[in-house]
């Protein structure tokens, strides 16, 4: 029972991983044989020295250093786009990466903190993106609603809300959707939760494609399916003006602001009564409810908050891509975001940030812009982008073999993996009511 319940924490290695692991080990053994005998001792000495230095440094740093570091990182983050041109590919990749960090932080609340394996996270991307289409374009052409929008948009037909209002709407809609998807999973355990959420994500994807047949009256439909909804209002801020699709710096600062907000909420929640309750439920639901934690409420809050972050990121990506096409909302997206938090280290906020940045840069910069022509240069007839999922699969397997706890694991999770901590469910033959 415990094995099944926590399997997502360990992420079973795919078939063949054992052989790959053996091959890697063989190579590393061969390497070791060729190195002089004193090298491992030398390495240990160097490592010990480094650890000593870092400890000494940490002791000498004043108590406010972590805050100072945070300020420095934020300032560097704000100034970063000034070193790149307005249309740079790197800036484009970076701001998409930041949007994925927001997604990963949201999914991390559900999967990492509360331990509810969610495979339908793409649904909240869809809701967020469609919020931009519904509330920030002429798609609902029979309506005439304009709230705090630019001069251009205020003369157009359709619903036009200010970008910030769309963010708030998306957050609310996603919170409700998160609770709705959470409700049927409440009496289930991890693997079954995964199946229900997977189905939910697929339903939303199918609904997006077939939304053309959902008539809302007056010739309006729910979505435009694969035709896509375009001519979205660019985000507009009274006094500052509208964002221009060709000027990436402003878009970067917008997503950075959203990210800092989400990061702040995440950090605060983790160290709170609610964060402790999530982790308690993840570790041992029976003990948690016996200690007075309301399981239903606490889980639904995790779903709602995770969904909210996903929706906010969806709003940004929708507005940035300028077209909302039902094709975006595929199952592979959920897996992509899940891979980020697994690579980073489940349950770890900084792990989610790191994992999301890493995989996004690989997917949106390294593969298409830097390495894409390599196969052609070698005389092979394909682009590297065609292999991107293969590359991700390989990286994921590699991480699972070499560092199963993730790159930047949470202290507790590390212990769960190494000390084989498992709750004793044998005692209860039925789930707690």
């Amino acid at each position: 029972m415990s094995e099944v319940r926590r399997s997502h924490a360990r992420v079973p290695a795919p078939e063949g991983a054992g052989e790959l692991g053996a091959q890697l080990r063989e190579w590393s053994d061969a390497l070791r044989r060729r190195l002089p005998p004193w090298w491992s001792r030398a390495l240990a000495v160097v490592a010990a020295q480094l650890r000593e230095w870092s400890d000494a440094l940490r002791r000498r740093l004043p108590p406010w250093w972590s805050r100072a570091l945070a300020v420095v990182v934020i300032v560097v983050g704000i100034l970063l786009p000034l070193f790149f041109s307005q249309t740079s590919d790197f800036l484009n990749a970076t701001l998409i990466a930041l949007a994925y960090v927001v997604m990963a932080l949201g999914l991390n609340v559900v999967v990492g903190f509360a331990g509810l394996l969610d495979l339908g996270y793409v649904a909240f991307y869809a809701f967020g993106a469609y919020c931009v289409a519904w509330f920030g374009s002429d798609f609902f052409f029979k309506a005439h609603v304009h709230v705090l929008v630019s001069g251009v948009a205020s003369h157009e037909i359709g619903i036009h809300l200010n970008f910030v209002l769309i963010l708030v709407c998306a957050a609310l809609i996603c919170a409700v959707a998160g609770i709705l998807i959470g409700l049927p999973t409440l009496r289930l355990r991890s693997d079954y939760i995964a199946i229900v959420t997977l189905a939910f994500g697929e339903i939303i994807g199918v609904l997006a494609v077939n939304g053309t047949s959902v008539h809302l009256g007056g010739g309006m439909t729910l979505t435009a399916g694969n035709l896509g909804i375009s001519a979205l209002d660019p985000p507009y801020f009274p006094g500052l003006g509208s964002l221009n699709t060709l000027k990436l710096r402003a878009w970067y600062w917008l997503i950075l602001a959203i990210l800092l907000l989400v990061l702040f909420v995440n950090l605060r929640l983790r160290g709170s009564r609610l964060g402790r309750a999530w982790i308690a439920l993840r570790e041992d639901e029976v003990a948690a409810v016996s200690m007075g934690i309301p399981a239903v409420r606490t889980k639904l809050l995790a779903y709602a908050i995770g969904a909210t972050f996903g929706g906010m990121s969806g709003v940004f990506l929708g507005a940035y891509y300028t077209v909302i096409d039902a094709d975006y909302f595929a199952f592979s997206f959920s897996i992509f975001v899940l891979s980020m938090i697994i690579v980073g280290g489940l349950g770890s906020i900084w792990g989610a940030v790191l994992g999301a940045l890493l995989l996004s840069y690989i997917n949106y910069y390294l593969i298409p812009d830097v390495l894409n022509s390599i196969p052609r240069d070698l005389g092979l007839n394909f682009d590297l982008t065609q292999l991107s999922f293969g590359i991700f699969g390989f990286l994921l397997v590699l991480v699972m073999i070499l560092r199963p706890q993730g790159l930047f694991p949470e202290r507790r999770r590390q212990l769960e993996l190494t000390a084989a901590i498992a709750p004793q469910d044998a005692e209860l033959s039925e789930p707690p009511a």
Partner: protein
Amino acid sequence: MTSASNMPLTATAAIQTDHVTKEFGGLIAVDDVSFVVAQRSIVSLIGPNGAGKTTLFNMLTGLYKPTAGRIVFGDRDITHTRPDRITAMGVARTFQNIRLFRAMSALENVMIGRHSRMRAGVFGSVFRPPRVRREEREVRARGRELLAYVGLRQRSFDSLAAELSYGDQRRVEIARALASDPALLLLDEPTAGMNAQESAALTDFMRRLRSERGLTILLIEHDMKVVMDVSERVTVLDHGVKIAEGPAADVRSNPRVIEAYLGKQD
């Protein structure tokens, strides 16, 4: 069967069950059990393995819903109440095979135990107004007090539960249960794995809990020395049925109890 089953539900009882039955499929784990735990008493629940003691505990704490019968805590019917609500009403428990949150520190475990007495919600947790900061500070201080009270060394407060010794884990589990300010404490085999001295110390500690905190204690126990030492009354289960009840000394000499434990003498 003794008169308990015919007794009116008494207001002075800490907790009482009224013809409680629990079936799993065809198996009757607890069969029509009625018993009363008086306020501020220490009562032992004994019986051979598989007698239904832990199942009864799980019903008292709301983890299982009885198939029939009802459970009354104080003057409130808690038969269909959720476990977290029952904890909030003042019932706390420990588990037979320690169920601490093993990857959390001892102090965090105790702070979790305080969950039902805390108020901070989502917005409080994010914005941390002075009220929430004060609450968090108080819970932390109280957690340290409780850990000291159950005899955990100060330097272990921030150790992960999994790293603590077996005895210390038992201590932390009791501290976690006490954190919710219970009126009734359910201890499931608290002396399991302890030597004679540790068991004696725990016996003293249970008495202290009653005199200093006014607790009612119901414990499942196999160590007869502890049972005879600490409990005023003993209830004996065998195959889910209550076979005896009364003062400890009487129960010990009850032929049905001897038979349940040692088998029938020919």
